């Protein structure tokens, strides 16, 4: 005979059984998200639910900063205006030169099938908030899928590269900052064209340039710009200025530290560069692509008499 408790004692599985179930579920979720990136759809749909709450929570701060803007002193505005005018003149000369260069480049591009390395289109975006994850350096912008933003697009401010869009919601997107640990950008030294990779250090206001030999010609104050060879960042965007070069002959590599040129932590408006080349295919896909590509000239050759 089976002894069962009366129905009003039924409380479902025990707390420990529930803990086991939910803990395993949470761990499975983490693995699916981390290893396979399989939960972007879940994240997107949850973010649609959560977004209104976040907007409500962020509203007071935004309203306050707008109010502060409104009451900004005349003095400060005039000074800013003067500075901007001076900068505009600087840029006007640049722009005229670049128009000439652009014309020249277009001429060359017409002769070669490859596409432009330089940034063209962009969308202005407002910074809504700093990411609220203490372990990751991120910004949240007010442009998303509906404005055609895609993951991988570079983000700049008026001084240089800020970071890269890494997640896109319906109306918002997340930018991972240059200073985020292991966030890397292919760069080039403007003084001598030396190529390197700049890697975020995980600390505010500093990025590292690892794996440069001790003999590399890098000095304090050198300027790094994007080299454009990765297909993500267009060439020529200012990235960082070298602040410290430590050459110790007992090590194989020099220790090079640079400061991001963009105000990575303090800006309100940024520009998302949308005129982007498609990201390079993963290694296997490229290997498959190569084979028919090799065949193609041969096939052409056969067709030609």
């Amino acid at each position: 005979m089976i002894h069962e408790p009366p129905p009003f004692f039924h409380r479902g599985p025990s707390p420990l059984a529930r803990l086991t179930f939910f803990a395993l579920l949470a761990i499975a979720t983490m693995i699916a998200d981390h290893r396979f990136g399989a939960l972007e759809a879940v994240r997107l749909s949850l973010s649609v639910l959560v977004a209104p709450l976040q907007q409500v929570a962020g509203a007071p701060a935004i309203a306050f900063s707008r109010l502060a803007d409104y009451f900004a002193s005349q003095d400060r505005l005039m000074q800013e205006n003067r500075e901007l005018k001076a900068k505009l003149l600087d840029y006007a000369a640049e722009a005229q030169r670049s128009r000439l260069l652009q014309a020249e480049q277009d001429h060359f591009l017409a002769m070669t099938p490859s596409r432009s390395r330089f940034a063209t289109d962009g969308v202005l975006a407002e910074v809504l908030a700093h990411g609220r994850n203490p372990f990751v350096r991120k910004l949240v912008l007010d442009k998303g899928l509906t404005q055609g933003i895609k993951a991988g697009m570079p983000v700049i401010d008026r001084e240089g590269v800020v970071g890269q869009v890494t997640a896109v919601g319906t109306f918002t997107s997340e930018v991972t900052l240059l200073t985020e640990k292991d966030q890397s950008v292919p760069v080039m030294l403007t003084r001598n064209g030396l190529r390197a990779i700049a890697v975020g250090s995980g600390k505010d206001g500093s990025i590292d340039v690892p794996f440069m030999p001790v003999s590399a010609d890098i000095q304090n104050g050198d300027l790094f710009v994007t080299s454009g060879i990765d297909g993500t960042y267009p060439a020529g965007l200012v990235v960082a200025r070298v602040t410290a070069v430590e050459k110790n002959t007992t090590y194989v590599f020099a220790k090079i530290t640079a400061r991001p040129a963009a105000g990575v932590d303090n800006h309100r408006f940024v520009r998302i560069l949308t005129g982007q080349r498609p990201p390079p295919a993963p290694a296997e896909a490229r290997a498959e692509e190569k084979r028919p590509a090799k065949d193609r000239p041969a096939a052409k050759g056969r067709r030609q008499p």
Partner: protein
Amino acid sequence: MRPADLTPVARDVMKLPAGPGLIFASLVGAYLFNSLPWGGWALLARPDLVLVVLVFWAMHQPGSVGQGLAFALGLAMDVGDSMLLGQHALAYVIATFGAQVLRVRVLSFPILEQTLHVLGLFIGASAVIVLLNLLLGAPLPGAAAALSPALAALAWGPLAWLLYLPVLRRMRRESAT
């Protein structure tokens, strides 16, 4: 020191169950608090009010708030904080389990001792998140992170009072009639 009252007070104090409206509103309020534009060390020290409210209801209303809701809220927090999905979920589920196990014991104490008990739960939840992030290769967060569970525990007393209020008022009204 007065002798501890060992009768499970949960049965008496919360004789009238809190309505689902109150539970929902308190959780939404706590989520709003967590979603304020925190930054820098304030973000590290942010007391996780969602966890506090969750543990409160898991203790006072075990029939309606349990580990399933903890898991869902954890996912919502992960999306809000743009973290790896499942981190907060795991921490919340473990804390809720602790609350379920310690429920009768904790509720037999006055607020001060309750605060110490839940401090342990909150430290455990923070430790889960920090450990997970260390596993993923993130650097150790600043010392301000240690403040977060302490602040959350400090919020326990005021929050318990605030969340009791509607229930107490209802009890008084019904005993008057």
